């Protein structure tokens, strides 16, 4: 037996095992450390602050939970949200995240560690990312081995696709959900492998936790049944599957119904029917198996098959019938938009208006996953080689998640774990092959297979085939020919594996010499290094901005903090009565509630389309039309975001068309989108802007007194790159109350009704000394014609 490099042979297997185990633990803790550390850019660069929009609500809810206890939280009715409808928070929220932080907070306080609840919330996501790394390690270990698991853990720890949702301060449901997702899948695989009711139950418990934490639990609800269904169709039904699935489904469904927000959905909506159907199918199949063991007659078995099919058809038609009768809720719009990307834009603009719901752009795949994205197909192909039950799971998961990630940007998050797992499998196979010191014996029969001393010996048996496979993988990775690749590789892989099994390979396969090994290994290492650099760079530059605080560069390169949002929210908090209702576009609802502590009309929990459309209508109509709407809803302040002065492109004028569209959906007679474009079909804000645009409340509030800033010179909107009209809009029904330092946030006060009963426009005209036209007494009799 020859080796490519010297291998110590006098080490006992126990020592090797222990050393490997220790190394794994050290590696895992280092990975955890890296995962946590790389998420702290946001805290280091800015401060310990809650990010973005939704986290502000979660943070506020957590504060209520921590201060008042669980029961008060459960029964919490928030009268300040969706004024005046209010929001039953306890029944419309996934409480998992808040409860998790609440528990951590209480434990810390029980240990006499007086940690602020804000810091618990800020650091929850990094903490859970370490757990995710561990869960991914366990999951991948089931797929291949420990070394692949470690690679997968390292990948998921720092991959930007996951970091984007879990930096410190990004206190959102996804922060804990990915951990729960991976751990539930791990338990499911474990249960399936062992036919263990215990692991099935653990899977169900974590499924329950997932249901309580994130609306994306539906992904698990459909992934596991899909896996089970595919297994049945492939004729792989077994008692293990039956036990695992039944225990998971029964306990998981019953417990998930305990979450108030979910309630009876698992038995009444279409999204959950797949799981129920597979559960029923499993019972039928199991019953058929049982009968088959007792009955020998060939004909009876045929009858059995027929009856199984008949029952299946009957069940499906019952499902269709119930859907038509309305007993089962049909698919929701959000679901349709997954299949037809144009659906949301046409029918539910409120969903389409969210940037997270847009289809993914190609570059963002590379941005979020870097070289994993071309290792990923290789890993999936490798899964076909053994095609055990758990490999099927990865394949299905990969196919489904790839599709969904292409449809919606935010679903990139569900794709990331499987990409990490598959890439880790591919890369670890590659490394296994090239680190394996065994030299093939030239032109002899290959008897050395069993004589391997490699610690990770599972791949040794398959070394020849692995080698061809990984070569292919490498080729795919380097050139990535998308058209014929997967199918060809698949054929080659199956052919080669069968041929090696038959032992019919005549030519010696393997890697000769240290140089060939080094070339590949060094290349791989370089790729890994670049991956780490890329991840660090993307994380620090793209994903660590709190978006509440903006950063820009001074001319000398130092950082300049733009803190307009908090400035404005604190102004509201300190200068307005506590019950002053603030109207803004729904994006800012949670932030106003969280930072300014004032009632809002609409917020990011977009449950009531009509209410949002009302705000859209008020924003896009003229003052005269908007004023009664504002008064009816007791609005005292209106808040708009305006980026024209410093070039902040995420402002309300850029979102304005969505307001118009959403309002048009409810009042098609009064608001029409084409009116807001110039006759040439351009979206302009300068002199040539359309009449409806210039009269809209949003336009007026954004550009009110903007031209004055430029002292007679033509003013320029730096977002739209257009010159604003020299004479700016005037406001009769609103007063400017506050404008922040960089004009990003502008707050207007709604005037009270005129005490003399005039409309405010003529009251204003009088105030400015304009004479009223002489009027005559109203005619009291009809003119004779």
């Amino acid at each position: 037996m020859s080796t490519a490099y010297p291998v110590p042979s006098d080490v006992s297997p126990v020592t090797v095992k222990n050393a490997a185990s220790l190394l794994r633990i050290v590696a895992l803790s280092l990975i955890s450390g890296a995962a946590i550390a790389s998420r702290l850019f946001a805290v280091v660069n800015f401060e310990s602050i809650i990010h973005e929009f939704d986290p502000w609500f979660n943070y506020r809810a957590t504060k209520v939970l921590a201060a008042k206890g669980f029961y008060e939280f459960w029964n919490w009715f928030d009268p300040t949200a969706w004024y005046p409808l209010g929001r039953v928070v306890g029944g419309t929220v996934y409480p998992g995240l808040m409860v998790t932080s609440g528990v951590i907070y209480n434990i810390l306080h029980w240990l006499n560690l007086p940690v602020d609840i804000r810091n618990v919330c800020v650091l929850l996501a990094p903490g859970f990312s370490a757990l995710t790394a561990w869960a991914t390690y366990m999951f991948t270990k089931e797929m291949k081995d420990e070394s692949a698991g470690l690679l997968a853990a390292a990948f998921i720890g720092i991959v930007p696709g996951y970091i984007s949702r879990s930096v410190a301060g990004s206190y959102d449901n996804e922060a804990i959900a990915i951990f729960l997702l991976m751990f539930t899948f791990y338990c499911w695989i474990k249960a399936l492998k062992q036919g263990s009711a215990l692991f099935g139950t653990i899977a169900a418990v974590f499924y329950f936790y997932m249901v309580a934490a994130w609306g994306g639990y539906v992904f698990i609800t459909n992934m596991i049944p899909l896996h089970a269904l595919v297994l049945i169709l492939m004729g792989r039904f077994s008692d293990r599957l039956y036990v695992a699935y039944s225990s998971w489904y029964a306990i998981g469904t019953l417990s998930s119904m305990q979450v108030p927000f979910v309630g009876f959905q698992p038995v009444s909506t279409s999204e959950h029917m797949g799981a129920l159907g597979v559960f029923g199918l499993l019972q039928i199949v199991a019953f058929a198996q049982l009968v088959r063991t007792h009955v020998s007659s060939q004909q009876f078995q045929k009858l059995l098959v027929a009856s199984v099919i008949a029952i299946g058809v009957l069940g499906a038609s019952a499902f269709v019938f119930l859907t038509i009768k309305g007993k089962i809720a049909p698919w929701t719009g959000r679901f349709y938009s997954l299949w037809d990307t144009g659906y949301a834009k046409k029918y539910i603009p409120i969903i389409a208006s969210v940037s997270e719901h847009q289809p993914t752009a190609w570059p963002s795949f590379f941005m979020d996953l870097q070289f994993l994205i071309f290792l990923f197909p290789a890993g999936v192909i490798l899964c076909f080689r053994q095609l055990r039950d758990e490999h099927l799971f990865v394949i299905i998961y990969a196919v489904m998640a790839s599709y969904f990630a292409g449809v919606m940007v935010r679903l990139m998050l569900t794709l990331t774990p499987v990409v990490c797992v598959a890439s880790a499998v591919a890369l670890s196979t590659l490394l296994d092959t090239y680190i394996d010191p065994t030299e093939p014996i030239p032109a002899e029969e290959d008897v050395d297979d069993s004589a391997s001393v490699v610690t990770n010996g599972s791949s040794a048996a398959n070394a020849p085939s692995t080698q061809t496979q990984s070569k292919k993988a490498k080729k795919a990775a380097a050139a990535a020919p998308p058209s014929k690749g997967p199918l060809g590789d698949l054929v080659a892989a199956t052919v080669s594996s069968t041929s090696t099994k038959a032992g019919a390979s005549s030519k010696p396969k393997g890697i000769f010499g240290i140089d060939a090994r080094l070339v590949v290994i060094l290349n791989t290492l370089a790729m890994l290094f670049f991956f780490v650099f890329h991840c660090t760079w993307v994380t620090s530059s793209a994903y660590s901005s709190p978006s509440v605080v903006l950063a820009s560069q001074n001319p000398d390169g130092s950082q300049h903090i733009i803190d307009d949002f908090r400035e404005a929210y604190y102004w509201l908090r300190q200068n307005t009565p506590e019950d002053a209702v603030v109207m803004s576009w729904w994006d800012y609802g949670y932030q106003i509630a969280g930072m300014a502590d004032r009632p809002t009309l609409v917020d990011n929990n977009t449950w009531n389309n009509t209410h949002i459309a009302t705000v859209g209508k008020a924003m896009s109509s003229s003052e005269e039309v908007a004023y009664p709407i504002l008064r009816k809803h007791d609005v005292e302040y209106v808040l708009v975001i305006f980026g024209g002065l410093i070039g902040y492109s995420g402002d309300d004028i850029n979102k304005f068309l969505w307001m118009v569209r959403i309002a048009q959906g409810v009042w098609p007679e009064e608001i029409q989108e084409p009116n807001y474009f110039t006759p040439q079909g351009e979206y302009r804000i300068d002199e040539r802007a359309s009449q409806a645009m210039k009269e809209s409340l949003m336009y007026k509030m954004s550009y009110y007194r903007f031209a004055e800033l430029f002292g007679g010179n033509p003013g320029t909107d730096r977002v739209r790159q257009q010159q604003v009209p020299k004479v700016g809009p005037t406001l009769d029904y609103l007063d400017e109350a506050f404008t922040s330092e960089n004009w990003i946030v502008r707050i207007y006060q709604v005037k009270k009704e005129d005490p003399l009963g005039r409309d405010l426009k003529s009251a204003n005209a009088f105030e400015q000394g304009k004479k009223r036209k002489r009027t005559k007494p109203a005619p009291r009799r009809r003119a004779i014609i």
Partner: protein
Amino acid sequence: MFSLKTLLLLAVGLVNIVYAKSSTGNSDEAPAIIEYDEPAFVHVVVLASETKNFAKDLSPQAFVELLNLKTNLILALSTKQTPLTSLAPEFSLVLPPPGTPLVSYFPKRDEPASLIPITPTKQDATHILSKNLAPVWFSGVPQALGNNPLLVPILHAPAESFASEVDGGSADALADSAEKGGEGLWAGSQLSVVTGFQTVNNARVTWVGGVDLFSDELAQKEVSPGVKSGNAQFARDIAAWTFQENNVLRIDKIEHHRVNETEPRELYTNNDQLVYSAYISKFNPVKNTWEPYSGIKDLQLSFTMLDPHIRTALPPVSGHPGKYSTTFRAPDRHGVFKFVIDHKRQGWTFLQSSTTVPVVPPRHDEYPRFLSAAWPYYAGAISTSVAFFLFSALWLAGEVKEGTKKSGSKGKTE
């Protein structure tokens, strides 16, 4: 000028309150009527009906500002064009062209046609004027009224009267002006000569068509032999109304709680029985006190979220003077509701009150525990449990033959 006399007349009728009349002399040294956003006077009377230019601080805008600050005004008009003429349209008063006073040739009398005795009728503000008021001598311009609901016409012109130039007051001239003005004919009892106006925040203004109304001369003048005119009493009446002595109400406090409780809750639950009470007082100018007042028969309460979900009468409670109370069931709908009283009657102080209170769904432990309608489910659960128990007992107690495949039935029970 008659201003001094007029003031004396007013002063005779009004006690206890400091009335200040500001700068008919147009002197710049006079105190500004608004200083640092604070009104300098409680009430302001402007009888300078013929002055062309007022002091700087007495612009029409300043008068409106005074009203916003809850200062009450009496403003007198004349046939001449003054700053007040341009202010009147803001109150939905439509004045005839300059130089056209109210003229009436009926009843036949010795006085000039522009000095008219007006007998208050039912049409006029009977709750502002005293009963059995003798006819009032009037000389001045009438006002046509716009459709502003805040206007309180106090005294209407007689039906036979019209606005016209005194000299050319012939039938032809009238017809001419009617031609020219199209429908703009200032004539008839729809015109008002003394008009009150109560702003949304309860400040009161009275527009008087001519300042002669207040003069001693007319107050002493007889309308019919032996009967002195009602001018003096009329002046007192409108001053009492304008200066917030008459027809002044207020809501002292409001209470709301659940039936059989006494303290208000921070939030109520769907379908709670709620009790709402309001305590209303009326100002007694004689004693200068607020007295409980149960005289409102048509008070209403709304329970509102965007739209009124409940609108019910709020009747006075007998035995409790000034207390109005009602009981109703909260709607089966959660949200931020408001108890709203919005009582607006011409000539009376507007009563407005709005109290916000959230109505929430029942707490998790407030729902009924056992429902009779759910018995099929209870029966199902119980029977399954019992069957499982029996099955397990039989299974364990029964003979164990060699390994039959029972995993199917085992799985089902999980």
